[in-house]
């Protein structure tokens, strides 16, 4: 292959990679609505990309997106003709066939319902949770198997197994591509938001910042939350929690640059250099949250966003309105009284009403035993004891936290605290 051709191939590849990422969610949603089969839809979409790779080297079409959409649609129609079909589908094909030779302008269609159906299917509770995450990243976000494996720290073969299992389950057990009925939608939407938040956390807790992985799961999660809130926009009640989650993630993401120092050590919120925060993002998150809270369909993500927002909007750590945060936690506990939330609420009490009172609450939690294996319980206790100048006890709890933590940076941080206390 001569040099010119090689360059051409490279540029076509790059263009197609970009289009694949951008268009996969939408195209799969559209193709599944025709074919009612996710695996088949993917096959058609991948064949289309391959066909483009072969043909675009000679000549890149004037409207690449429309080219892909048209070829994919026609390939789907071809597949349908070979299947036994219901009358509805036959009519659909007849209607679409008349346009077969015309160019299909996919940008003119947003298919909000189809896209939402695809998301609901990927996050169906009958699919194992860890497989929901992989499938959503693959089918809705358009990430490749390699990219997902890298981002989720899984081997390629494990990930492939998960996706195969998930797709097989959807097909064999006949999980429908539908927006769930009214009585189920709240639970199902919650499941979708849970997947999105897990994608975000996986990205945010990732300690490999320095390696600059090519896929930013935090950005993917934000994109998904935006998509879901847009897709549910005509129903404010459903849209509110999606927007709440979006605001929560944006508030958190805005602090990303400040959470490690130059040596890569953890910097706690209290000590963070607030000028490193992304203030434009904080303002945007605040705006989204204010509009959402005004709709008065409060939920756990909106409250958590509000808590994070109080932290983010404080000019300095000393100016943090802890009474406000404590009040928000009381509200949150009414909706979700899980042990981790109770722990965070106890910490808020410590800063709002005194360290002893917070310690007391944490000790109660410790006695109940739900968080016995949770490092943060002991580090929170150690931190308050340090502030009360009970150094020896503090060291003991930091040691306990070290023995339970799996995150290297967290362990380093506790170790540093112990050394400071020993001085």
């Amino acid at each position, binding site marked *: 292959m001569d040099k010119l051709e090689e360059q051409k191939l490279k540029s076509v590849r790059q263009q197609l990679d970009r289009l694949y990422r951008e268009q996969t969610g939408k195209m799969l949603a559209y193709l599944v609505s025709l074919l009612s089969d996710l695996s088949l839809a993917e096959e058609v979409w991948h064949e289309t990309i391959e066909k483009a790779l072969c043909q675009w080297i000679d000549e890149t079409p004037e409207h690449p997106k429309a080219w892909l959409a048209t070829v994919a649609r026609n390939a789907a129609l071809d597949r349908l003709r070979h299947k036994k079909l219901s009358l509805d589908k036959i009519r659909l094909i007849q209607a679409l066939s008349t346009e077969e030779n015309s160019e299909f302008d996919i940008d003119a269609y947003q298919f909000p319902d189809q896209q939402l159906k695809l998301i609901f299917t990927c996050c*169906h509770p*009958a699919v194992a949770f860890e497989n929901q995450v992989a499938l959503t990243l693959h089918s809705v976000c358009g990430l490749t198997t390699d990219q997902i494996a890298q981002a989720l720290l899984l081997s390629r073969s494990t990930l492939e197994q998960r996706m195969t299992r998930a797709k097989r389950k959807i097909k*064999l*057990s*006949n*999980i*429908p591509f539908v927006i*769930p009925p009214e009585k*189920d939608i709240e639970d199902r939407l919650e499941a979708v938001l849970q997947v999105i938040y897990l994608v975000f956390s996986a990205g945010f807790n990732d300690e490999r910042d320095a390696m600059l992985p090519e896929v930013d799961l935090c950005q993917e999660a934000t994109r998904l939350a935006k998509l879901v809130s847009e897709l549910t926009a005509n129903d404010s009640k459903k849209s509110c929690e999606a927007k709440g989650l979006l605001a929560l993630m944006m508030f958190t993401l805005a602090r990303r640059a400040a959470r490690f120092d130059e040596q890569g050590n953890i910097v706690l919120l209290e000590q963070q250099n607030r000028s490193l925060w992304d203030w434009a993002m904080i303002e945007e998150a605040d705006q989204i949250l204010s509009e959402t809270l005004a709709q008065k369909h409060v939920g756990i993500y909106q409250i958590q966003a509000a808590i994070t927002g109080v932290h983010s909007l404080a000019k300095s750590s000393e100016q943090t309105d802890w009474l406000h945060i404590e009040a928000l936690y009381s509200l949150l506990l009414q909706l979700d009284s899980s042990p981790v939330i109770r722990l965070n609420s106890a910490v808020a009490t410590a800063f709002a009403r005194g360290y002893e009172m917070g310690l007391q609450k944490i000790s109660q939690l410790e006695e109940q035993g739900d968080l016995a294996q949770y490092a943060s319980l002991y580090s929170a206790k150690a931190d308050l004891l340090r502030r009360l100048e009970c150094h020896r006890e503090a060291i003991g709890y930091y040691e306990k936290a070290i023995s339970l933590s799996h995150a290297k940076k967290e362990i380093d941080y506790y170790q540093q605290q112990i050394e400071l206390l020993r001085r």
Partner: protein
Amino acid sequence: MKYLLTIYEDEKVWDTVSEQDGEQIIGRYMQLVENLREQGVFVAAERLLPVDSATSVRVRDGQKLVTDGPFAETKEQLGGFFLVDCKDLDHAIDVASRIPGSETGTIEVRPLWYQD
């Protein structure tokens, strides 16, 4: 598409149920069968005798092995089933959640074997 909904429950629960409550539960099962029939979903449903009536059979190397009891000892035992004809999995899940046994035990939803 046909789904088999198998009902797994701790049989001992039935020992603690009063006669009146027992009749009420049976009544709810009958009602469900009736509803499913009206909706054209019902294919079959049966209740099984307790697991101490079970016999396991295995043939290995042409040798027939017959043993007393179920194949596996578990906390919940197969107590009955519904065979239903549903639109899709969501529909089958909806029917499963209406089976009284789902409130104390577990319903396993399995599609029947089919060829593509």
